[in-house]
């Protein structure tokens, strides 16, 4: 694939991610933060996010498996997940977290379990998307092209 085509594909793909609400402006800010001094910043942060989220999701599953669910703990975990997802701009995960927290307040086990499923679902989706995106970027870089920047005038 030639570089230009790949670049266009990357732009299109990014746009769809925004369009479908997987990502929001925060992700753009991340991309803008990446420069020569931090060439792998986005990758770094995103993989941090993956690690963190997987750990949190595990903790959440464990916490909800307990006979007596400690909703405070669950809520704290979800809050953290919400914080990290909002800072990389994974807004669908974030939205799921918001719903999750509401049910935590209600101490509704069934609903929280459902929300956990939902959050996991969203997480895997966005993980998949982000991995594809990053792979594309790497391919472009490998092919010697530069990553097109997307400007958003917020």
């Amino acid at each position, binding site marked *: 694939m030639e570089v230009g085509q790949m670049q266009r594909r990357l732009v299109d793909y990014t746009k769809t991610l925004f369009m479908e609400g997987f990502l929001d402006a925060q992700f753009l800010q991340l991309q803008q933060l990446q420069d020569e001094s931090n060439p792998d910043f986005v990758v770094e*942060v995103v993989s941090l996010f993956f690690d*963190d989220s997987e750990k949190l999701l595990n903790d959440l599953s464990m916490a909800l498996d307990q006979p007596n669910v400690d909703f405070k703990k669950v809520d*704290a975990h979800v809050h953290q997940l*919400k914080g990290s997802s909002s800072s990389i701009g994974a*807004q669908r995960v974030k939205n799921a977290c918001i719903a999750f927290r509401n049910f935590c307040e209600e101490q509704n086990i*069934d609903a929280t379990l459902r929300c956990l499923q939902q959050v996991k679902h969203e997480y895997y989706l966005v993980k998949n998307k982000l991995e594809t995106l990053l792979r594309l970027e790497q391919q472009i870089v490998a092919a010697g092209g530069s990553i097109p920047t997307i400007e*958003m005038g917020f």
Partner: protein
Amino acid sequence: MAETSPPTSCGSSPVVASPMGTPLRKVLNRISGLASSCRSKKGPRGRCRGIFHRDVEQEEFQYASAHCLSSYYSVFVARLAIMAMLAILIALLTVLTWHFTKMYTTKSLKTLAFGLRYELLQRPILRMWGILNSTSEITTAQVKLSEYVIRRYSKPTTQAEQVELYQMMKDMTWALFASRKALNAITISYKNGFVQAFHRDHKNNNTFYIYSDLANYSISGNESPGNKMMSMRQGWDDQFIQGNVSAIWYREPLDPISGEKTGKALPIPPDDVINIAGPSQVPDGVASWHVAVSKYTDSPLLSAALPVWDSSNRSIVAVVGVTTALFSVGQLMKELVEVHSGYIYLTSQEGYLLATSTNAPLLKNTTNGTKLMMAVDSEDRVIRMGAQWLQKAYGNKFPPGDVVHVEKANLGGQHYYIDSFFLNLKRLPMVSILVIGCVCILILTNGVSKEMKLRAELISHLNARRRAEASSNYKSQFLANMSHELRTPMAAVIGLLDILICDDHLTNEQYAMVTQIRKCSTALLRLLNNILDLSKVESGKLVFEEAEFNLGRELEGLVDMFSVQCINHNVETVLDLSDDIPKLVRGDSARVVQVFANLISNSIKFTTSGHIILRGWCENPIVCSDSGKFSPDQKKPLSALKTKLKHHGNHMKKASKRDKKIVLWFEVDDTGSGIDPSKWESVFESFEQADPSTTRTHGGTGLGLCIVRTLVNKMGGEIKVVKKNGPGTLIRLFLLLTTPADGTEHHGLMDFAKHSVAVILALHGSMGRLIMSKWLSRNGVPALEASEWNELTQILHELFHPRTRNCCFDDHYSRGEPLRSMIHSLQDMRNPVYIVLVDLGLLDLSTDIWKEQLNFLDKFSGRVKFAWMLNHDTSNAVKIELRRKGHVLMVNRPLYKAKMLHILEAVIKERHAEIHKRSPNGNKGGSHECLEIDSTHFETCSSDDSEISEKGGALHAGEQPREGTVKSNTANCHTPKNCLVELTRLGSEVNILRADEDECNAWPKLHDTEDAKCENSNSPEQHHVSSCTKDGDNSYTSKAASGEKSLEGLRILLAEDTPVLQRVATIMLEKMGATVIAVGDGLQAVDALNCELVGKEYRRDRMQTDICDFPPYDLILMDCQMPKMDGYEATKAIRKSEAGMGWHIPIVALTAHAMSSDEAKCLEVGMDAYLTKPIDYKFMVSTILSLTKRSA
């Protein structure tokens, strides 16, 4: 899910289900579908594996759905179970509720009815008790006194002494008798048979003294010879009887009050009038009671008898009897029954009626005198039957509890309640009281059910209120959580649209559509903000910030902004602020601007032609009396409003003296469709529009004015619609704002009269022109007005070629006379400077005629100074041409005071420069340049302002570091020239850029402000420049705007537990040159700070030098929710440890919520500012800068 099931499994169920109803079949279908889906669960998995390699995304989805299948299954079963349980629960609840309601009602009814009856009965009983008590008291008192008196005369020896004794007794008895009006009689019968008695006839209100003939009795009765052998008592009795028989009794009438004798004593047969209690009634020497009748009363009498003992307590010397009528008991019963209905009667134990609530007679006349009547023989049917019923039920053996309650006793075909109480009187045969009620209970029942209903209603009201409060709470909670979540997607939408608009490959239609979407989203965002604002105000969460701001400039910016919108509408926007309005006021500028933005945009919406005037003045008696600015009809309602305000304002005025508060009045006056007077109040309600039918044409939610009023009220003001002459609406409001101590002083207005300047206003808008010329005249600048090209030429001719054109002038213009006199007076001025302010709209821009017109005006350029008023869409070609011709003074529409001042000042300055030029060191070019600088600079300023105020009005307030901007703006105006040179360069660059843009822009020109703004922000260079001017006086911050290393050298401690956010924030800060130390929680943050301190201490100790004392970090960014120690706690700890150090490290909170309540909490624990997640890059920088700059 039913679709995936194989048809075979489905096939069997309809056969079974066919006779059943469709709903049932549906359920069965669903269940069978479910079962089959369970069976087919393995199928998709297998397939899934097959597809696995084909598409990663699809795989993911399939995996998820397979995963979900089992969970759906369990969820469905759980749902079914829950539904069933719910149904049972509801049914149970209903039954229980019904049951309890019924039970409770009946029970409470019964209790209430019983309580009432009980209380009813208690009252006659109490009365009865009262009577008995008083009777016995009197009796006892009489006995005691008699004993005392008789003992004094224990051994009466002579007749005289005896008489004296009786006289004493009589007086004493009278005293007692007179004191108790209820008494019927008091009798004393002595051992010797002598009788004294007082009797009161209640029927005809007579009082009598009755006594027996003294002569018949010996002095010592018990020593009478005929009865010597008899026992003491026996003799007594005999004597008594004997005396009774033989004695002659006299009765003498007495004055009932004084006891004086009023008539002659008449002999009467003994025992005829009253019962005299004799010794027979005190058989064993103790008190006795009995019920008697007398022929003078129709009610039974209750009499008590007590013996009087002699001093040795061995023999009875006399018997005292006290008789009371039971009449009053009957009276009370009647009263009770009158109110409550029913029947009450009182009987003695034997069954004799003593009192009833009816008028049935209690006594019957028999052959041998009046007798008491038995209750069973009563003439009253109900009483008779009640008594009979009681007798039948209990006979003479009353139940041991002495209380009888019977419900539903059938008396003569009707149901009655019967209650009976028994009163045991010592020595008095038992008295029982019965109440029989029928109607009374019925009435009671009604009353009770009504009360129950009321109570139920009250309870339901309470519930409803509680629910409403809860839901309102939920609402604000919801908004608190949603405010951020709503704005973010909106921001994303707008951002994406901006991307799309930048795309070059859009067709024109697509572009138009996208622009439309962009506009709509902005509108939606604005609406969202409105609603959030409103709910914030309502929930009391809106906190006004107090900051100094330049009111005039804010309003000018606002008018600038709206005038752009208005030009298309053919509506003139005019700002008319009186000179006495202080330049700087303290308050929440964003909110003030929001008020006017809402009002003006509202006016614009409903005004299709004419003008919109924003007037403002300061409440101050001197000001109000001055100025012909307000026509009389406008002044009148004002004064009326003022008197109305007096009472409200009294305390306010006091306050205003203390706090330097001022009352600023404003009017928004338009010539639009107007508001019906009946709606003047209600337009300020939420979701209220004066004319609902206009919603379709004008849109809007009806929230704008509501927000305005809420804000105005919160700022201590009032707003109302005021009557107006002519079409349109006049909204008047006042605000209470504080002025800084030196804010009231007038900004140095130049004395223009000294400079002999005259102005010709050749402007289109008549209202603005009028107001401007009046203002100019007030300030000593004569002004001429022209509304069109021809008029302008006439005036110019008249001024400069008076002789040649004089005749034609009069013919053409009817208003010539005053104008000409004006012109003449102008001509009288010594060496005047004429300024002609020409509206570009006067030129004919559609053809090339405007160039001719310019050439024409050029002829006058030596004698007059031209200033141009441009439209915001004036094409660049015109501007360039103007500039080429040396017309450098240009302002944008609309014209207001500040712009006029600016023009005047520029002209005067230039004139001075020209004067200087004549002197050797003058420099024409230099002065020219200076002028240009000023004008361009001014343009940038104003456009900048409008952008800000647009944001202030539309976007979330308080996001702009407004104070700084205003300051720098004002600072710019007075910056020395050399500093401005650079700006000029930038400014002209802007102009060139703009020109380029204008010329080669393929897009349709956008007139809307939003689009203008978006256009602004989209051209990066321009943005750059405007931010340069924004932070103009501060080279430090101007660097910041260019985005590089603005935080150079700052040490920042970052406490954040989420690794991702930690990383992001670190990079953000490092990118700007800050040194970041990141820690994972609050505890570590505190430790890091302490560590650093200890290290410093140590170092200082070692070096033995007093290093300048400053904190280890310049700033701390603190997440609020962290494990181990949260941000609030950490802040508290840090502030505590700081206490001894003498510095204050700025702490900025990072919160996930965006409401002021969180902010309040943050500030409460000692934080300095807060940022919301996700972190906004620019906003973070500005916050950090503002904090670190302050501390530096």
